[in-house]
């Protein structure tokens, strides 16, 4: 039986917060040995459940004090035994430890360094401090994610961190593949800002080519024209009145099926809804009519009914919907489970791909900080037990 796809690849991981850990989690899920170098104590809060459990699963952790020269020495030794070193600091930090690409490639010529800084290592704003939400603000997402005339709501979360993480994982894989082909390492200067800007490409081309100012898309289709197209309030589920159904009706054939599925109401035969063009023009009135149908129905039932007619419809799902109730995610066993040291189980986000061979998988929980000290320092780097004790005594590592 073949092993995990990235078996045999070792990653020295300096990343923190979200974007970097997402990138290295993806590599770890696919079998890379990811060694997370951290300080102690870590941030407050549980690290084995919730988002933190998601971010660090399948990784190893060592607790090394990078403010100590012998800590830096350990990290540099480990880098020489690694295929890839990844961080999400500004350029200054890795350089101050002698662990930037220029320094590391002198001692290990085929090393790959991926740096996932906020705005990149070069340029006048290279030292800007940023987080996912601030990058979304700079890129245009926040302002254009709004109800008409309302305050810019943007994402309520850090999509930029996720997008940055995916981009980081892909860049790392590209560099690893390139090394397999050519034997050469390289430096990847990833700007999370550029990663997230790249995901509004068609809007940017519209600005560049047509000089057109972008307006909030609202629920106007951003792909093939559709009407109705939007989210419609449904009947409360118990005392939860925040139930909505997303519906997209594209061509004329779909419209005819849609009208049939909602019981052929008289309004649907009005001239102002006859063609896609006029439906788009009269979308406010159309949406009001559709809402009168959905508000009488439980979102799940309305979705089933429309899907049976071949109409794209989906419940606007909350945490309980996706984590517990969604029959599709359950049937595909999407959510993963890890066994925690205390013997209990915790659920984590799964891997969205299944393969006919061995693909990504969830194998171990987020590690306690420093729990792989013995393996990494002892087995990989050859420090004796006495030497490790001495390193602890001089506070170069934490036990």
């Amino acid at each position, binding site marked *: 039986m073949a092993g995990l796809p990235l078996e045999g690849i070792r990653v020295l991981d300096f990343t923190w917060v979200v974007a970097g850990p*997402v990138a290295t989690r*993806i590599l770890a899920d696919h079998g890379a040995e990811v060694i997370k170098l951290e300080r102690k104590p870590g941030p407050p809060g549980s690290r084995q459940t*919730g*988002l*933190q*459990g*998601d971010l660090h699963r399948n990784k190893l952790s060592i607790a090394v004090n990078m403010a100590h020269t012998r800590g830096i020495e350990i990290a540099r030794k480990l880098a020489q035994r690694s295929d890839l070193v990844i961080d999400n600091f500004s350029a200054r930090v890795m350089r101050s430890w002698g662990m930037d690409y220029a320094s590391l490639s002198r001692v290990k010529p085929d090393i790959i360094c991926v740096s996932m800084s906020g705005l*990149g290592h070069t*340029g006048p*704003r290279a*030292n800007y*401090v940023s987080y996912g939400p601030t990058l979304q*603000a700079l890129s*245009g997402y926040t*302002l254009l994610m709004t*109800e008409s005339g309302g*305050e*810019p*709501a943007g*994402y*309520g*979360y850090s999509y930029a961190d*996720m*997008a940055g993480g*995916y981009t980081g994982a*892909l*860049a790392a894989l590209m*560099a690893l593949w*390139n090394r397999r082909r*050519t034997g050469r390492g*390289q*430096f990847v*200067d990833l700007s999370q800002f*550029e990663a997230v*800007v790249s995901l509004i490409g*068609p809007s*940017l*081309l519209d600005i*560049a*080519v*047509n000089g057109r100012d*972008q307006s909030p898309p609202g629920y106007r289709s951003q792909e*093939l024209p559709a009407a109705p197209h939007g*989210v419609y*309030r449904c009947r409360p589920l118990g005392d939860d009145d*925040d139930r909505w159904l*997303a*519906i997209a009706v594209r061509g004329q054939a779909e419209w005819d099926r849609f009208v049939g599925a909602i019981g052929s109401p008289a309004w649907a035969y009005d001239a102002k809804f006859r063609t896609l063009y006029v439906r788009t023009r009269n979308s406010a009135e159309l949406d009001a009519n559709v809402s009168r149908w959905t508000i009488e129905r439980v979102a799940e039932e309305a979705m089933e009914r429309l899907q049976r007619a071949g109409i794209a419809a*989906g*419940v606007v799902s*909350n945490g*309980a*919907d*996706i984590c517990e109730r969604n*029959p599709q995610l359950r*049937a595909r066993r999407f*959510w993963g489970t890890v066994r925690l040291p205390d013997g209990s189980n*915790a*659920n984590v*986000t799964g891997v969205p791909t299944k393969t006919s061979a061995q693909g990504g998988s969830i194998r171990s929980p987020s590690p306690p900080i420093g729990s792989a000290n013995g393996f990494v320092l002892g087995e990989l780097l050859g420090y004796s037990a006495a030497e490790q004790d001495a390193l602890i005594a001089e506070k170069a590592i934490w036990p």
Partner: protein
Amino acid sequence: MAIPPGALDGLRVLDLTDCRGQLCARLMADMGADVIKVEPPAGDLARRIGPFVDGIPHHDRSLFFWFYNLNKRSLTLDLTRPRGAEILRTLARSADVVIESSKPGRIREMGLGWEELRRINPALILLSIASFGQTGPYRDFEADDTVLSALGGMLYVNGFPGRQPVRPLGLQAYHSSAYYGAIATLCALFARDRDGLGQWIDLSMQEATACAVEHVAGSYFGEGRIEPRRGTLHWSRYFRVGKCRDGYIMHCTLGDWTSLVEWVAGDGKAKDLTGPEWQDVGYRAVHAEHLFDVLDEWAKDYNRDDLLDRAQALRLPFATVRKPEALFDDEQLAARGYFVEVEHPELGRSFRYPGAPYLMNGSPWRVYRRPPLIGEHTGQILRGELNLDSGELAEMAAEGII
């Protein structure tokens, strides 16, 4: 010095996707893979999606198509006809990757299913991108990006409590899926390098979307909490949109607190924020509403660019809430050469495209060719690479296969 080849130089990808999967193959084309976009003879439906150059709808003027198909070649081929499917099978013999996004079961009906393809080429990697994956009760459900955003949990958490959720800008359910698809494909290449065998990757876009919402499952599984919509407040409670004199700013309370309070107090607007309890980052999260109300009152007399410059000088992670148009005047993007000119000789013009999402010094991102005209490389591929003669080509063209 010559520019070294891209990381995927030498790999061939057959891209059978429609608008739902096309970014995935684009990411590979940008790295030097030879991506052949296989379109129906009437053209990919994505060519009918706007915006269009000068607002004139035409299959070779869709900016939507351009963005997702830069660096690819185009082959028109009707895969629903036996002759078309046969040509695809021939191409699959020497291809490394096939990417498709049709309804589950559809490629099998055309004689292009996994069993068939791997019989032809055991080293082939097949990536199937489907709304809900190849199995399960929703397998045959219809979806677009909005419906996937809904069922993946991405939609519910944006916007204001009690009001209609706000949709993301751009097709982010598709985009998340594309990245996961490219990642899984690269991983499959590593596995193939070891055992010589390809694999079939079953990607669920609903699942990829659920992966792209960082906190929803974490909060539910970790704390049993259903994440609500929080308006302009970020779920972590460390960020909120605030109003300045000339627009909006993103406040952040994760930077150096002492610097921030000194600044606000210097303007006489700190109110109770000078108290020692606010030094604690957790306290700031718990009392975020009051904290941001005080900051809003303070920021409203500033212009946003002044506020940003001063905040960043103090290492405070603030940002201006900008229009995307501002990206074209952004000094940082300009200094890094983010936007690139791509020539469209048939229009006699060149256009600025968004460029590399990462800078690699050993195998750089680059523009190899502008997005293809419809069927632009059909002759080149069929005549030049499959050695079909002009007679056969004419015959297939007459039958509407190419």
